[in-house]
């Protein structure tokens, strides 16, 4: 592997400096290195593992912070206090929760496929942590800069689907199986529009590397690609199984979905993966649409955290506001509305870049005015699509089919999933 991205990695260089006494493939540092001469390669490994250690722990800590902030904020939204007994303002509540889960008995149900049952939470947690590897937290603050970073995120987070299915199938429980069937159907459906909404960004940046994506944003892409942002936001909240798309673990219909039979540390791993993925998705949204770490006055990583927690707050707000959708509504929305909309987005972005961009060295280049124009065209076509869709749905709703769907809502066996 080429080590070129390591030279621009600030944290890696700092740790390597302390250990080896010189920068990786560069000039010497101020202090003498801790390692003897000729053992630089140990520094190479330790520096890499140190960043991984920081990332994995930041992920778990972030998940704990998310649990606390979600419970407190949901309390505020519902005009109650939320947890406030453990520690000041209830700040130690997540730690108490984790301790409780660790001390619970780990139950494997009768007739379960034990190895798969044990493996499922691990397969669920690993991809969520792996995604953090390519996300740049500040200028020079990252683990690695893959030339296929965007695709890497999509591919690795796609593994979660298999974990959900493993959990649902191995438990030998009907509710778990229903939950995981719903989950797989939903995740596959919403992955497509989500990936397609990234194509507009690809057209504008011409690179799959996330650092290039941030550097290419003279104007945050939320202004240039509003349609893609809307699709991506809906797609991620469906991928994260958040309300209004939480049919996977709808507690009033199928108890808790795929993790019905899990307890103790395994359940904790599922929760950590779920809560941490929300933060990771926030990081992806910040990188793709909100100009990553860049912002005035404050240092980069702090801006990045502000953007991530802005997304997290939005997610909690949505959860407190919207009711759950029905299964057929969720699937229909993905295939009949979001997917065509994302195709329209690709077409509109491509056409406007083709018309507005000036050829330079065989690449079409856009200045800020052009980018704003692209954004305006994108926004107008989004509004046009919404108006058109609203018109069609209105004419369809008067056709009398909606009554028929309402009946299946009361089918307790969730038969609509299987048909």
């Amino acid at each position, binding site marked *: *592997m*080429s080590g070129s991205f390591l030279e621009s990695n600030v944290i890696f260089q700092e740790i390597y400096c302390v250990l080896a006494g010189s920068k990786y493939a560069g000039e010497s540092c101020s202090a003498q290195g801790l390692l003897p001469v000729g053992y630089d390669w140990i520094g190479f490994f330790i520096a890499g593992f140190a960043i991984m250690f920081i990332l994995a722990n930041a992920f778990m800590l972030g998940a704990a912070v998310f649990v606390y902030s979600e419970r407190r904020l949901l309390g505020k939204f519902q005009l109650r206090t939320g947890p406030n007994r453990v520690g000041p303002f209830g700040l130690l509540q997540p730690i108490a929760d984790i301790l409780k889960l660790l001390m619970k008995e780990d139950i494997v149900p009768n007739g379960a*496929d034990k*190895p*798969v049952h044990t493996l499922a939470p691990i397969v669920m947690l690993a991809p969520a942590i792996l995604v953090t590897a390519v996300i740049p937290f500040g200028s020079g603050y990252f683990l690695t800069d*893959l*030339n*296929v970073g965007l*695709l*890497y995120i*999509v*591919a*690795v987070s*796609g*593994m979660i*689907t*298999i974990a959900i*299915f*493993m959990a649902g*199938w*191995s438990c030998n429980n009907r509710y778990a199986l229903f939950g995981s*069937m719903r989950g*797989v159907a939903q995740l*596959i459906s919403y*992955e497509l529009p989500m990936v397609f909404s990234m194509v507009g960004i690809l057209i504008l940046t*011409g690179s*799959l590397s996330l650092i290039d994506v941030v550097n290419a944003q003279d104007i945050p892409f939320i202004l240039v690609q509003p349609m893609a942002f809307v699709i991506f936001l809906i797609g991620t909240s469906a991928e994260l199984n958040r309300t209004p798309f939480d049919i996977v673990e709808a507690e009033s219909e199928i108890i808790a979905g795929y993790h019905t039979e899990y307890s103790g540390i395994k359940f904790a791993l599922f929760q950590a993966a779920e809560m941490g993925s929300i933060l990771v998705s926030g990081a992806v949204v910040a990188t793709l649409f909100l100009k990553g770490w860049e912002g005035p006055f404050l240092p980069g990583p702090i801006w990045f955290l502000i953007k991530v927690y802005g997304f997290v707050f939005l997610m909690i707000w949505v959860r407190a506001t919207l009711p759950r959708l029905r299964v057929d509504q969720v699937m229909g929305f993905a295939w009949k509305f979001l997917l065509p909309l994302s195709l329209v987005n690709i077409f509109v972005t491509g056409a406007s870049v083709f018309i507005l961009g000036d050829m330079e060295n065989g690449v079409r280049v856009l200045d800020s005015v052009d980018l704003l124009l692209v954004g305006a065209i994108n926004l107008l076509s989004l509004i046009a699509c919404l108006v058109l869709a609203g018109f069609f749905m209105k004419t369809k709703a008067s056709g009398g089919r909606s009554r028929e769907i309402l009946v299946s809502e009361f089918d307790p066996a969730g038969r609509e999933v299987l048909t």
Partner: protein
Amino acid sequence: MIQELTFWGFGSFVLICSFLVIHTRNIFRAALMLVASFLGVAVLFVMLRAEFLGVIQILVYVGAIAILIIFGIVMTRDSEQGNLPSGNTFFGAFVGTAVGLLIAITAVNTTWELIPSESVLHFQKLANDSPQIIGGLLLNQFMLPFELVSVVLLAAIIGALAVVRD
């Protein structure tokens, strides 16, 4: 040294997983073994500095095809009986051996061009730009095969819809 260890490690991992796909009694576990062997192949791609192919391997095979296979298994009524033996053992063994021999003979007989040490940097740059290069080739030189593949996929989609509607 590390490179060779990784190669042999993941190569044997892929082979063992593929063997277990056939020989596991539990059909759901067999499907999971298939996923594991796909992941191993992706690692081999990344080792060849074909990161794009490696990621596409995970995206398409693990993220889509494996899920479809698992769905197929769950929907099948015979899944309770486990991994049923096939009647075509002889024919399967013959075709498998033939294809394996063909690949092995081709791999041995090809004279592999090694990158001269002075142009390693150039090829590293090429590997970094591989997504762009692959995209350019697909939309210029290999436009017709690319479109043909998409027509095949379209036919598959229409066929699936026709089967469902019956």
